[in-house]
Every structure is written in C-alpha cells, then in structure tokens.
C-alpha cells in the first residue's frame, strides 16, 4: 500500500517549502488586512518549521526524521535559508531547530496538569523574515525543488514520499508552472509519488478553504490553477484529516486558500499520537 512507509531516522523523508517572495506579496493579506501577504507567508513558514521541530523534539534532543529545504522565489530562485544555514539546500531538522535567525520570548499561561496555572516562558524561533521583491518565478522554483527532491530520492529510494509545500499568492509570471508541477509530482519513491501541496494566500477576504475536492467554488483562476497543480490526498491522509475533523473526501487535494497548512505536518505519521481531544485541557 502506498504512503505507508514509516518515517524514522533510518528512513527519513524530505519536505521542501517554496516561498513566494515577489513584490506582489507586499500587498495586504485578505484574512488580516493590517498584514502584508509576505508577513502572512513568513509567519506560516516559521510556524511550519516550529511545528516540525516540536513534532521531532524530545527531552533529549531532536530525532532526525526529516530533511528540510526552503526555496525562495522572487528576485532570485534560491535557497532561502538564512543565518548559519545561509544558502544551504536540504538540511536536517535538527540543524533547523538549532539555527534560527532569532528567538522571540513569549510568556504563556499553561495548565500545570495538576489543577494549577503557571506562567511558562516559551521560545519562538524565527527563521524567516518577510521579503517582497521581484517577480514570481514559480515555475523555476518548482524545477529547483525537483532537483533537490530527485537527489534525496536517489539516496532514500524507500522513503515516505517527499512533500513539497508551496506558499504563494498564486500569480506565476515565468510561464505556466503546471508542467513543472506535474514533473515534480511524477517523481516517486517505492512508497508513492511526491506530494505537492499549495497554500494560496490572497488579498481577498474570502473564507478559508481547506482540502477542497473540486475547483468550482474557488475564488479565482490562480486558486483554480494551484488546485489543479496540487496532489490528491492519499487515502491515509484523508483518514487522518477526517479524524482531525476536517471536511474531506476521496478527491480532496492538498490545497489551502487563505489558510495555513500547519495541520498537514500533524498528519505526518512518525508514531503514536494522541487522539484529538485527549489533551484539550
């Protein structure tokens, strides 16, 4: 059965994020008009990386379940890793966890689990600052992702299929990105084809859409094109999404409109998770 390989340290998988850094990203973000789209995307990628680190984190360190790459596309198409990781291609999740650009300290009130509430100082690492400059060479970004993922697949032929997550406002202007998306999705490990998910951030204040089954009802042509470029969710992910109370069906695709894809990280199976509700204290 496809998409059943276990993700572990001897058989890690890879996740590549494509981050739209074009000038149009300086426009306001529909869901939060006081924010630029580039802020929304930087927030999203930082939260995605935080979620991945937390997922792999234990008291004694990070378990290296993932190789992570981030490609920025705008003025240039290149690795968008900053700081100590500047310019690098795929890096381990452990290196990500230990190499943020900066760390924000926030205080959060949390339950101590025995009836009390305590102030907990939590660190929120930031790896990416917003960038909005240049055009939208999405096709080239997808082609670079294909190069990186191909290299990973050569070294890890039996891995859980790599995941590519594209965060964009949708307006590619280096030609039709569809063929590059198809070529990327056609790469495969012995466990299935590469998954390409798209998160479309829009200026429009339309309600969020997650994992739609059809393009009818999507608000514009860019959204429709990104929907068509997105992989169908494998049945196992459909099942997990349903358990997490998303409305999904067999034709649902890895596409989000004005919504983030952080949930997708939770869906990745690296071992026993708590059922939803088990920790909603």
């Amino acid at each position, binding site marked *: 059965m496809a998409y059943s390989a276990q993700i572990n340290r001897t058989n890690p998988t890879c996740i590549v994020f494509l981050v739209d850094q074009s000038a149009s990203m300086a426009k306001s973000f529909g869901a939060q008009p006081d924010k630029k789209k580039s802020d929304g995307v930087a927030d999203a990628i930082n939260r995605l990386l935080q979620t991945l680190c937390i997922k792999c984190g234990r*008291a004694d360190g990070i378990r290296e379940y993932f190789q992570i790459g981030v490609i920025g596309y705008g003025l240039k198409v290149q690795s968008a890793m900053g700081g100590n990781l500047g310019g690098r291609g795929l890096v381990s999740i452990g290196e990500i966890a230990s190499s943020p650009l900066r760390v924000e300290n926030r205080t959060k009130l949390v339950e101590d689990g025995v009836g009390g509430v305590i102030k*907990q100082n939590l660190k929120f*690492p930031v790896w990416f600052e917003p960038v909005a400059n240049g055009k939208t060479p999405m096709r080239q970004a997808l082609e670079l992702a294909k190069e990186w993922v191909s290299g990973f697949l050569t070294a890890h032929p039996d891995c859980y299929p790599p995941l590519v997550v594209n965060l964009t406002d949708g307006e590619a202007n280096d030609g039709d990105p569809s063929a590059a998306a198809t070529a990327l999705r056609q790469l495969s490990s012995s466990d299935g084809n590469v998954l390409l998910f798209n998160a479309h951030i829009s200026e429009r204040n339309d309600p969020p859409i997650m994992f739609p089954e059809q393009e009818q009802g999507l608000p514009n042509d860019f959204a429709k094109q990104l929907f068509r470029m997105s992989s169908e969710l494998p049945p196992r992910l459909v099942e997990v999404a349903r358990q997490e109370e998303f409305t999904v069906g067999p034709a649902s695709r890895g596409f989000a409109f004005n919504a983030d894809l952080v949930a997708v990280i939770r869906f990745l199976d690296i071992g026993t998770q708590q059922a939803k509700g088990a920790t*909603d204290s």
Partner: protein
Amino acid sequence: MSDGFATPLRWRAYQLPKRGNRVEEFEDALAGDAQTGRFAVADGATESVCSDVWAKLLVEGYLAQPITDVAEWIAWLAPLRRRWWDDVGQRELPWYAEHKLADGAAAALVGLVIQPDKTWQAVAVGDSCLFQMRAGELIEAFPITRSDDFNNRPRLISSHPPKQEPQLQTVSGVWQSGDELLLMTDALAQWFLSKLESQQDPVSGVRYLLDLHDNPAEQAVAIESLRDAEVLRNDDVILSLIEV
C-alpha cells in the same frame, strides 16, 4: 486483595526498542510481581514528551495499588500526575520540548491481577493488550479483539487532565492451571491477533522468543525478521508471559 501466591507464578518478559531507536529512547514500561500476581505494561506515545517517565509511573502505580473500580479512576491517577509534573516540570528542556510540556505525556496501560482463588481482573486504556490462552485456544482478548482495530491514534491516558478522560475498561475472568496470560504492547498484540485470525498459533512464537532469553542477539533477530517481513510494525515491543 489477597496476600499473593505461596509459590511465585512463572513470569517471563521481553522488551526491544523500535528499530532505529536506542535503548534509552524506549518509551514503553513493564512491571510485574510474581508473588502478588500483579503485572502491567504501558506504552508511551511517541509524539509526547517524557512519555517514558509517564509509562513507568503508570506501571509502578498499578503494581503498588491495582485500580479495579472505575469510579476511583481519576483519584487513582491524580498522585501519578503530580509525580510526573514534579519530575519533568522543573527540567531544563530544549525549546521544542518545552512547547510540548503543557500538553503532557500520554500512554496506554494494561494491568492484570491474578488471584490465588483462580480469578483474575484486568484494566486497560488504549491499545496495550491482554490475552488469555488455554491449550492454544484464545479465552480472552482485551481490550482489542481484532487485528484491524489498531490505529495510530488510540485514546490514551494523559499526564494532564483532559476535558474528557478516556474511560477505564475492565474485565475479569477465571484461570485454570496451564493457562497462559500475556500482556503486550500494540505492535506485537496486532501480530498476535492476526496469527490467531489466520488459525495459526502465536504462542509458540512467543515461547520461542522467550526461550532465547540468554541470547539477546538471537531474540532481536527473531523480532527483526518479523519486522522485515512486515508482519510486525516497527514499534517498541514489550511482552510479558505469565504461566499459571
């Protein structure tokens, strides 16, 4: 509770971490006392933090005071929760582990008390299992009865009180001389049930494994061959066999 058995029960156990994990990363725990007839197995959830500490507290808590009454369940958990927090709440943890601390740790538990009066009582939350076998026949499977019923998101016991506590499941039975009572974590339990469903005898495999007790390398080979054949999910394994 009785004073236990005049002659200790015959109890053998085995544990092996998930392939790719180090021994110190083992998240399951087992405990047993062949004199009092108390046994427990707990399986810490991979994605929660310090779940190994929680699993150990649960099995030790069960051996010290076996819970039997569902009405006492929350009160029974309270001191264990406090001990978990006392242990891990003050630790210096990396930033990613601190984020998880507020969610608490989670574990499955199965506990068994065998009485000299030929009865036994068991409790469970989650997917760690008890099987009672008699001359190759399954007498009881608890709390999961079919190999298809395992998944990666069981309801578990959390070290933090959730909005809705998972229900403590209970069962009891009688034993005869020669019966085998087995406790095991989910991956092995799923294998055990699937063997039974295909009319095969899983107990001989379990015995073979335990008979290799003085040869841990061979034991690991036996488990790895099942993992390679994909009849056993790659997960921490705990097995406890009590012969009465």
